[in-house]
């Protein structure tokens, strides 16, 4: 099984959105919580295991006019950080050769 480039939000994690469009990601299993800005919220909502990271970046660039040039690097770092702390995983691809001889 290999990791795809399609991040998926940990379904146990709660997204708590606030009035200012910032939000808190809360993992009830660990009680860990982290604050994320509106761009982070938009990224979180797109991590459905179907979109690739590049596709997410493209959508973010379209949605946020002031997205920086280095959006891919920044978003990748953000997602990696979330993955490191268990908020995000990646869809797995089954590369096994199931043929029998």
């Amino acid at each position: 099984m290999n990791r795809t480039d399609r991040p998926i939000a940990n379904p146990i994690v709660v997204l708590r959105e606030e009035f200012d469009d910032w939000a808190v990601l809360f993992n009830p299993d660990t009680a860990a919580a982290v604050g994320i800005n509106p761009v982070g919220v938009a990224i979180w909502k797109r991590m459905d295991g179907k979109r690739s990271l590049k596709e997410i970046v493209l959508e973010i660039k379209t949605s946020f006019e002031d997205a920086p040039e280095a959006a891919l690097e920044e978003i990748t770092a953000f997602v990696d950080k979330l993955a490191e702390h268990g908020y995000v995983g990646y869809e797995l691809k089954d590369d096994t050769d199931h043929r029998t001889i």
Partner: protein
Amino acid sequence: MLMRTPRTVDIEITARCNLRCRYCYFFNNPAVVYRDLPADEWLKFFDELESLGVMNVTMAGGEPFIRDDLPALLEGLVRNRMRFSLLSNGALIDDEIAAFIASTRRCEYVQVSVDGSCAQTHDSCRGKGSFDRAIRGIRTLQRHRVNAAVRVTIHRNNVNDLENIAHLLLEELDLPGFSTNSAGYLGTCRLNAADVLLNRQERQVAMATLLRLTQKYNGRISASAGPLSEGRMWRRMQEAWAQGAPAFPNGGRLTACGCPSSKIAVRADGAIVPCNMLAHMELGRINQDRLLEVWQHSSALNQLRRRHTTPLTEFEFCAGCSYTPYCTGNCPGLAYTLTGKVDHPSPDACLRRFLEEGGTIV
């Protein structure tokens, strides 16, 4: 700052209790309907809490462990991605339920009330046998590695037992810490006020003892209300006044407390209220009114949130008081039960009155 939805919901999951403590805030409140809801009502409500991103539920009562369906209710919280805490007298905690709680991995803590270092003190207000059962409950939680928290409610019968209580909890039971409060003029306590409420001298003893003990035990004793909290706050207020310091950032207005911006409560009968201490203020009813609507648009709740804009100088009670720039007016629940008004400073927490009665700050 107001949150878009409540982060925490305090639920009185039952109106039943196995004890009848002499200073219980819960019973004998004429505004409360003492009726339990069936589990399916609560489970439906928990689904709604999940949709709002509520993070924590605190279950109190009554005595939450008296409900046979408590595991099903806790499973409902777990299923809906929440963590939980339970407030208990400890008597009904056995291995089975402690193991279940541990298995959920979602329990913040189970708080057990311990009001004495021995049965004589503890049982004086809680009833015969309750001390042994509370301690057994704590040990059961510890055995199952459930975070056992302890609350000590200070009253006339245990004010001279605080040193021994700290020894029992922090040394014999090896708890990381415990919190304190004092009996307040609410519920059953109103009927027994003369026997249980601290008078000025006892309050002073409690403050001095707790301030000393919290140093001895390196901060392992905490309080958000009651003598320890008052002792700290009043000392700061007196020092600020003596130095002519500017007003505290939250001083001079009815800024206490901030709970309605982040949490809300539900009574055992399903009435939504701002706080268990303001149980008369019905804002709606679970599964009939949408919690989000109540949270964001209830005029009574929003008025309570605006309480912090009211200057203390508006109150005759505060006229001429030098401490108003440093005072928050304290608990609206106690203000209501003592004065009949929510929008009023709580006389119970008045430093000037304490000093006028002969009290001193150590």
